[in-house]
């Protein structure tokens, strides 16, 4: 903020003025994505390194998902061994799409965690990119369109996942059969996705 012609303070960004006690700041309308603790994000794996995966989440740096912040496929809580480290690629490979939650900023960057059943690898669907300021922070970012059998995950970073509905299932139970009709679901996914893209275009024009 700088003084200008004795008209008072003028901000360098356009936005909404917010006040907290004596702090006055301007929250910009069209900003880059700024992660906060507890944000649900959808990211793509760009690298598999020692004990961690690096994900691209539309932020200035890549986010880190530690092996210890992931539930192992067998479900048991145990110390990660060297063998687990070698088998990391069998859990997530490069270019996989993953849903996770922001854990916080650590010394080496932004950390994510995916401990719950609703997080993890996203298959059978499609990822869309919209400008991040269009996704507002709400209570619910996971939506299930029952009529179409489609799962919607609105990542706060602007990545939206539209995919087949996956029941949150317990890993210990045997594989449940009964796959839904993939063809119908697929056309529904495309329908949802076209609607999202259209609304994104309309919103970004304003």
């Amino acid at each position, binding site marked *: 903020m700088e003084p200008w012609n004795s008209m008072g303070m003028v901000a360098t960004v356009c936005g909404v003025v917010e006040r907290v006690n004596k702090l006055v700041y301007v929250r910009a309308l069209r900003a880059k994505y700024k992660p906060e603790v507890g944000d649900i994000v959808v990211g793509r794996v760009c690298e598999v390194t020692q004990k961690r995966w690096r994900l691209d989440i539309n932020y200035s740096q890549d986010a880190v998902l530690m092996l210890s912040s992931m539930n192992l496929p067998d479900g048991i809580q145990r110390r990660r061994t060297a063998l687990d480290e070698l088998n990391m690629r069998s859990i997530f490979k490069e270019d996989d799409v993953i849903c996770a939650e922001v854990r916080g900023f650590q010394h080496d960057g932004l950390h994510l965690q995916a401990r719950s059943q609703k997080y993890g690898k996203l298959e*059978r669907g499609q990822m869309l990119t919209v400008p991040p300021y269009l996704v507002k922070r709400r209570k619910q970012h996971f939506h299930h369109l029952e009529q179409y059998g489609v799962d919607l995950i609105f990542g706060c970073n602007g990545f939206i996942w539209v995919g087949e509905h996956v029941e949150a299932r317990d890993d210990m139970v045997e594989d449940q059969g009964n796959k839904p009709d993939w063809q119908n679901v697929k056309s529904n996914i495309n*329908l949802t996705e076209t609607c999202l893209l259209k609304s994104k275009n309309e919103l970004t024009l304003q």
Partner: protein
Amino acid sequence: MVGLSLGEKHFIQGGIAQDLRSDGRKRLTYRPLYVETGVIPQANGSARVRIGATEVVSSVKAELGKPGSLQPDKGRVTIYVDCSPTAAPMFEGRGGDELSTDLSVALQRCLLGGKSGAGAGIDLSSLIVVEGKICWDLYIDCLVISSDGNLLDTLGAAIKLAASFLISFVTDMRNSNNIILILFLKAALSNTGIPRVHVAAGASGDDNTEVDISDEEFLQFDTSDIPVIVTLTKIGRHYIVDATSEEESEMNSAVSISVNRKGHICGLTKRGGAGLDPSIILDMISVAKHVSEQLINKLDSEIAAAEAGEEES
């Protein structure tokens, strides 16, 4: 280009098998086409075409030159494509050179026909001024600004539009002698065209020819025969038209076919490592003919709209 996970790849392939693409299009539907002509005032003709997120600018410049000794009755056309680094980070420095050469060669094959000049989409014999001595050299330059798949089709459309705003000339041979005066005047129209050339009478012929280029008289360069290029990308067992860069990353092979208004094939280019059964290629050709009609109609209506706009201004 961002990679795709296995699930996303299956999603794209499965969708195409069901005639349902990622953005809701059918297999044989083009993305919306936006056209702007006369974007480069210094060139004789120029156009900017955007199909979806792929954007291309092309310009046509004409200069007088000497025809080649092997083809004294034909003018010359050179096509050059440049991939700008703004289109993709990998085009920086020399990274885009290979793709640029591929595209230039493919365009030459589709638009210019064989070595003898036969079968060309652009009629080279209309470019001659004095047979054996003077001809028009057309330099067609294209710049890829943004790349999201289907570059060849966009380039073909841009060249067709740029050329249709290139107003040509006719030589007026008053006398068989060859001395001509050069008078160069700036055109009044916003789309500068190649002016009319008068070959004036004069003293006994020597090799110094001068050209009288007037600016009031222009004649239409017949561009209705310039073909458009339709690229069919084969993914799995089906073909799609106008692939995005994600779909192109999944392709087995792609065939680019240039078709003119009469439905004749002017050129054929195949890319990609997978082999194709000949019956599939014949099928692709008939599909391309069908699809090219809509594309040609769309381009013609754009040309007509732009010409109407010019007459008003």
